């Protein structure tokens, strides 16, 4: 397999990228000196991809199906995938997000045995009708486990308030009643459509020889036959404009858990989303980072503590902030956050704040590269949406005060929802 090498001299990193005959994209990050070797095989198929147009026809599936399929790929009546990985000394795992499903392994030895197995078990389903039925009760336990977590309840409450019945507000595992509608045939169909190698990426990192890796991967792919890449148009609906009502629940918690959801504009495309994510990371440091006057005032007043945190997600369909944590005064905290946004909109930010926090983010970007797994996952996620994770570094360095202020002006502080889980009486 031919591959191209891209160098990032400032970061001391490089990336090799090629495409196998099957259409599978292979990305490799050489990591000399590392003992661990890590690989991830990912497809841009997640919990929100419930409707699609396939070769002109509409295809609709129940909530939770991407996650269900992820579970079932590990079933093989002849053997146990996990046990074979174990016999190689490797660990394996998988996860499903709103926009992707990924399978991975981590090892120090027997790398090529592991890679062969990863490519084979994800590309050749072996699950059975009985196995699918048995899986329902295991996933039902998983759903129950999350249901008991107040942090999860308050988070879903915020998503529900922002998006109503849009798939982004559904539990990634679906509901118990959705599981009954997921059967063997439907899972096979989803695998055929959404796991075509032409849509997927293999990302590998470790102290490995590039030539050998690409040759090996090409040979693995040549042995297999795949159906032709179907024409798939994802039909993720645009969420309804406007905002629903606040969410309240009572659970066994020590004090109120709070989430403030704030809707933002969807990105024009994935490239726009990535840029926005970087601008927002800088904006959040200035607004409510640990060195901001605002964060420190709230901390000193006891409105927030170390449990406070912020999430930002941006996709072409939806985009939002979720501020969350424990607090005795959820209403007041929400009010403070929104007022500070309005104040920044009116007063702007200082060049000095921008410079300090930009330096901070540059340092953090370099620090994150210590982690092989997190770097590989970020590369996979970016690649599936047509992006280059390591190239974010240069883009980050070029951010300006105008970028942050431009973003700030586009925010509508009224597009907000408050979700609170209160202690039981």
């Amino acid at each position, binding site marked *: 397999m031919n591959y191209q090498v891209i160098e990032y001299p400032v970061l001391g990193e490089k990336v090799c990228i090629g495409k196998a005959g099957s259409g599978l994209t292979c990305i490799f990050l050489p990591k000399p000196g590392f003992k661990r070797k890590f690989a991830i095989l990912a497809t841009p198929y997640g919990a929100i991809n419930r409707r699609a147009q396939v070769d002109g026809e509409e295809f609709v599936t129940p909530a939770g199906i991407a996650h269900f399929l992820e579970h079932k790929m590990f079933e093989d009546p002849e053997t146990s995938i996990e046990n074979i990985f174990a016999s190689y000394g490797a660990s394996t795992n998988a996860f499903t997000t709103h926009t992707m499903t990924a399978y991975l392994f981590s090892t120090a030895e027997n790398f090529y045995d592991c890679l062969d197995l990863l490519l084979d078990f994800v590309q050749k389903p072996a699950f059975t009708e009985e196995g699918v039925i048995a899986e329902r009760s295991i996933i039902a336990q998983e759903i129950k486990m999350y249901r008991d977590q107040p942090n999860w309840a308050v988070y879903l409450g915020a998503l529900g308030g922002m998006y109503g019945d849009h798939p982004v507000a559904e539990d990634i595992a679906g509901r118990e009643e959705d599981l009954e509608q997921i059967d063997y045939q439907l899972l096979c169909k989803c695998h055929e459509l959404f796991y075509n190698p032409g849509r997927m990426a293999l990302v590998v990192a470790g102290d490995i020889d590039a030539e050998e890796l690409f040759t090996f991967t090409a040979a693995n792919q040549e042995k297999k036959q795949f159906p032709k890449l179907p024409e798939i148009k994802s039909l993720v609906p645009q969420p309804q404009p406007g905002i629903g009502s606040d969410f309240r629940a009572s659970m066994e918690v020590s004090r109120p858990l709070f989430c403030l959801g704030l809707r933002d504009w969807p990105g024009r495309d994935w490239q726009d989303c990535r840029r926005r994510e970087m601008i927002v990371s800088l904006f959040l440091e200035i607004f409510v980072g640990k060195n901001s006057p605002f964060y420190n005032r709230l901390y000193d007043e006891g409105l927030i503590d170390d449990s406070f945190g912020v999430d930002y997600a941006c996709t072409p369909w939806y985009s939002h902030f979720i501020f969350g944590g424990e607090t005795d005064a959820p209403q007041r905290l929400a009010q403070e956050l929104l007022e500070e946004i309005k104040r920044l909109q009116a007063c702007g930010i200082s060049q000095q704040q921008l410079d*300090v926090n930009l330096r901070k983010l540059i340092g953090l970007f370099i620090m994150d590269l210590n982690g092989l797994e997190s770097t590989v996952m970020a590369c996979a996620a970016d690649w599936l949406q047509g992006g280059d994770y390591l190239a974010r570094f240069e883009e980050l360095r070029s951010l300006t005060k105008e970028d942050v202020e431009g973003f700030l002006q586009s925010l509508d502080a009224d597009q907000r929802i408050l979700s609170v889980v209160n202690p039981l009486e």
Partner: protein
Amino acid sequence: MDYTQQTLANGVTLHLLPMENYKTTFIGAFLYWPLGDDAAKTAIVPHLLQRGTVTYPTARELRAHLAELYGTQFGIGVLKRGENLVLQVRIQLVNDQYLPGNTSLLEEAMDIFREVLLYPYTEQGQFAASYVQGEKRNIQSRIKSLLNDKSRFAFHRCLQHLCPDRGYSNNKYGSLKQVEAVTRETAWQQYQLLLQNAATDIYVCGRFDQERIADAVSSRLQWPRNPGRELDKPLPLEKREHQVIREPMDISQGKLVMAVNGRVTQNSDLYPALILYNGILGGFPHSKLFQNVREQRGLSYYIGSSLDSIMGLQFISAGIDAGSFKETTEVVADQLEDMRRGNISQDELEWTRSRLQTGLLQMYDDLSEQVALAIDARISGRRWTIPSLIEALDAVSIGDVQEVAKEMYLQTTYFLSGGGD
């Protein structure tokens, strides 16, 4: 370059652990103190240190300066290991070579580190009253918030039933009442006591220049100490009759925690057999517990076991339906019995051995795991290095695992659940 250690003039041990594949340098001070009745005033100390220093009196000023140093990460922590508290102050910074211009980032970051550890912000010669008040409130919230995570809550309750009379059952922050009783005076006295008397290590890991770092540390971190107070040897729990405790809570998935007591610890020659024993029983997806409870019977979403190898304890945890309590505990008991009888297949043994050895090799790339290994060595009194453990694992037989299993004794079964049964 390999791991080296040296003793500073005041008796503190400086450990240098080079990791050439890292882009950062980590520096951490670790102070060890027994987990006893003074836990509250001990654990609050690092929380107060992070609030401000002589030069940077507020957390905001301190954090702003760290941000300028290319986001130098600064953190404090309180860890419970065996019956000890480990107080941590740590920083991590990007190596100069990745930054524009010729910087002195290391020295500037070390200046901050020194101030945080040795020159906290004070008012009238003590911690500021407002900082003490604020951190007491935060710690109390943290203690109470244990309730928000049902698995952790169940684990804590299990410990309280397992050994109510031992420091080991205590929250690392102490009780709500003990936290309430902390004052500016007692916190300050405890801080002085710790600095002067606690066994202390300084760890430097990652990418660094050995001479430059040794100089930066020894010129900054010399404070007067009493000759080191060494750590008490870990004391195993007494064996008691098995007790079953059920407590109600309105949750949809019951949380099961089973505490298994044994005599084998990190200090024992059988330690490699202990980790194999735990791996075969419940450490991995191929292990007996996962295979028999989840895969064969669909009783749980998660089930596994973990070790506190300093105390010689094993904990089995699972999330199950309230109605499955009897069946699950019976299946677990069968697996424990199988371990005692040596009903262990060659595959189970070899897969577990291979997983553990690969895991150890991977630790070479993980700074925090290497530091954790070193902390354990300090507390247990026996230093197992990565290569020594890998080698020792090679020699373990099913007979050795069986020998460990015969020592393991189910002492407390704790179940938190809603209705049913």
